[in-house]
């Protein structure tokens, strides 16, 4: 295998398999080598994440007066957002959270319609449970998930009056893709899913207590023909048939999954050979998401130059990467609050399709919104909220000249390869007096404080940092 495993390659993998790594993490990844690093990412069950879990336990239960609720109040969607963002930033199992985030985008559900905050939290936990499992298992789990049953109306689907909303999106958006099934299939799948509903969905407990209920009285027990297969199919049968469905080229769900996973982890519009290769892994592994993802991380093509820095970071990824690579302390208050102005109402997508993503995240308003949020992180000199420790970040660095200051940080944010003009612009900024003339920089506390914070802001708002 001819993948050059260097710091750049490790940083690229870190950005894709998680939200990015700190310099210390990159040191250890480079030293461990590609195989061991991929192994550790994929088999994350072996990685001790107890610090994260115990921190979250405290943050979601401990009430510190004068507050009357925990900092991450899981009875409110704001709390669930903070909880998930915290995991993305601080987990020792980056791929577990990144896959959960992907499932969050893939299997859309939104609090505005679902209403029950606990239902959204539980759905997120289910996604994490099946982050790298068998695709069949996650499809069934999500199809029986109360939030999803409400979001796409399958909870309303009864024998004689099947609701087609979930059946359609199950095939169109979640497993096969548009044009790979017929309207007749939608109707028949809807019939097979009749009776998969919720019980206990009531305003009395703010819709938080709903549970999956397989209402056999509402099953449609007639013969159905789904994608050419005829029988008295139930919900699990329908899912199995959908996932097993093949055409001349091979597994249709395999190509769908291959496309989505490659698009998420590598780049858009994968050529046929990649789709077919990954679909083959999907089939031969018994439809294992873990097998496909691991395969991706070992492919030369994944590390190719044209695969690097070509994905636009979503607002969530941008904020998480910033917090992680700044090694910031945070209560997640500003990060979560600002996500909406960056275009991503986390757990509240505009529609079933979810965000378009890619360059859609970037417009003049969101560019300023991202700059505003990172500015808040970087200029908070207090001891609460989201803040950085400048002294910690500069510790051990040579800071004699403005160029030194730039060099001290470029690597931290994966920006070592930026064009010389940008490097020069950053150095010029560090060395600029208030009137714009040169000669400002000296390594002393006041100058350090202003220019390091300002420089980090420039780095985080440069075009490269919106890419991963």
């Amino acid at each position, binding site marked *: 295998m001819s993948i050059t495993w260097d710091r750049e390659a490790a940083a690229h993998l870190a950005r894709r398999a998680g939200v990015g790594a700190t310099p210390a993490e990159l040191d250890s990844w480079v030293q461990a080598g590609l195989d061991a690093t991929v192994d550790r990412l994929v088999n994350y069950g072996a990685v001790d994440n107890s610090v994260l879990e115990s921190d979250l336990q405290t943050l979601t239960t401990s009430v510190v007066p004068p507050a009357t609720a925990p900092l991450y109040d899981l009875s409110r969607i704001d709390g669930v957002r903070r909880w998930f963002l915290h995991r993305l930033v601080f987990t020792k199992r980056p791929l577990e959270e990144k896959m959960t985030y992907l499932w969050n985008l893939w299997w859309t559900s939104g609090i505005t*319609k679902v209403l029950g905050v606990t239902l959204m939290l539980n759905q997120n936990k289910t996604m994490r449970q099946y982050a790298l499992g068998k695709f069949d298992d996650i499809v069934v789990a999500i199809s029986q998930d109360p939030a999803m049953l409400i979001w796409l109306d399958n909870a309303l689907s009864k024998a004689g009056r099947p609701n087609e909303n979930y059946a359609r999106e199950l095939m169109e958006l979640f497993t096969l893709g548009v044009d790979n099934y017929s309207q007749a299939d939608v109707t028949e799948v809807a019939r097979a899913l009749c009776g998969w509903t919720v019980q206990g969905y009531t305003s009395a407990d703010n819709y938080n207590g709903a549970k999956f209920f397989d209402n056999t009285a509402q099953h449609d027990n007639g013969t159905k023909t789904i994608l050419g297969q005829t029988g008295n199919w139930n919900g699990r049968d329908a899912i199995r048939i959908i996932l097993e469905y093949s055409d001349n080229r091979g597994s249709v769900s395999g190509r769908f999954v291959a496309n989505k996973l490659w698009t998420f982890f590598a780049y858009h519009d994968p050529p046929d050979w990649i789709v077919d290769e990954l679909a083959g892994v999907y089939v031969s592994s018994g439809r294992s998401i873990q097998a496909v993802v691991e395969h991706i991380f070992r492919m030369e093509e994944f590390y190719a130059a044209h695969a690097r820095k070509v994905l636009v970071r979503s607002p969530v990824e941008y904020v998480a990467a910033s917090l992680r690579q700044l090694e910031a302390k945070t209560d997640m208050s500003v990060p979560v609050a600002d996500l909406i*102005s960056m275009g991503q109402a986390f757990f509240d997508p505009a529609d079933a399709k979810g965000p378009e993503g890619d*360059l859609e995240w970037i417009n*003049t308003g969101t560019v300023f919104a991202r700059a505003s949020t990172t500015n808040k992180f970087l200029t908070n000199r207090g001891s609460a909220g989201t803040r950085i420790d400048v002294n910690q970040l500069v510790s051990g660095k040579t800071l004699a000249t403005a160029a030194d200051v730039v060099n001290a940080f470029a690597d931290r944010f994966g920006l070592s390869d930026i064009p010389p003009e940008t490097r020069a612009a950053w150095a010029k900024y560090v060395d600029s007096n208030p009137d714009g003339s040169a000669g400002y920089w000296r390594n002393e506390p006041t100058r350090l404080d202003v220019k390091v914070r300002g420089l980090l802001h420039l780095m985080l708002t440069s075009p490269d940092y919106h890419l991963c």
Partner: protein
Amino acid sequence: MPINRREFLFRGIGVATVSALVPRFAVAGARNFEESLAPGAASRVLVVVELAGGNDGLNTVVPYTDPLYATLRKTIGVPAASVLDLNGTLGFNPVMTGLKSLWDSGRLAVIEGVSYPNPNLSHFTSRDIWHTADPALAQRRGWLGRWADTALADLDNPLCGCAISQSLPKTLLADKVVFPSFTSLSAYAYATDGSASSDSANQVAGFVKENSVEHEIETRNSAIAGVARDAASSSATLKQVTSNYVPKAAYPNNSLANALKLCAEIITGNLGTQILYVTYGGFDNHASQKTAHDNLLKAVSDSIKAFFDDLDGQGKASGVLLMTWSEFGRRPQENNSLGTDHGTSSVHFVAGSAAIRGIYGPAPNLASLDRNGNLTWQTDFRSYYGTVLRDWLKADADAVLGKGYPNLGFVNASYV
């Protein structure tokens, strides 16, 4: 196939060296935008005001002579003697002195009974239907987004429209045009260190420079840099043209007025901004409606009046039309919590010199409610949109809306 936004942002036709040394528009250049507007549409502005939550039309424009109104609204009804009469049978809620004054000066049209077939009573769904002008919810783009893709895309103006909002309303979602949304002028700027204001200019200069690297071919990096440069230059221009703005009216103290004032600032700045979108929420009055709703209506009425007074003073009123919408009305029968539940059709307003004063559509028919006790709708909202598209924006309304809808006639089509 229409170019999607990705391709638009790339602006990539062959090799292009993207030089940012010339800002996309300097202050003097702001006037160039007006020259580049399509003839006839030059300096026509549409302001869209969303009343979020479902505005109770019956307590807004009150059918005060209908005995059924008093029966249905025993407690929260508007007393007949107090209404500001419009035509002998309908009258404004008495708090709406501002809109009444626009009506008296001939600059307000009242559009009754607006909804669509099989009205949906979910905020979430009905709002989307209004945003996209498609009850089947098959359209991704907003109705003004679809218009903008044909009418504004070639103008290359980053401020051809905007939303005074935290996030882009779906009405403005387009493929080829990117409308920014911001809540204040200071939000539409590169944020800098508040504790180091003497360094602020250096920070902004650094931001512009790092987004000004020349690229031989368009990449995602250069596309993002292009957006950042657009943001920086449009922000600088906006700041400069609005720094001279002095309001010519006293605006009330509420978020709608603040947003409309910002709209007036932008309009006065002559940047070629043609669409402005603001939202005002709180209309979902399921309980204790009377005082809360009256306050909202007063805010709406006073703010819109102040907005037009300001525009009059700035000499810009003749080029502006304002329209309201809401995702639905409320049920005629008040509920047990002294409020109202989700309803169907409601009343909307169009204000401006091109509006032809009148009441369009029949008064609400309280004798003939549907099986949910809701008003049967009279006017398809696409007629409402279509009239604005055709007669104010001079657009191919049928193309935007998918087919032709009757023109309601509330805009003077020969207005100049």
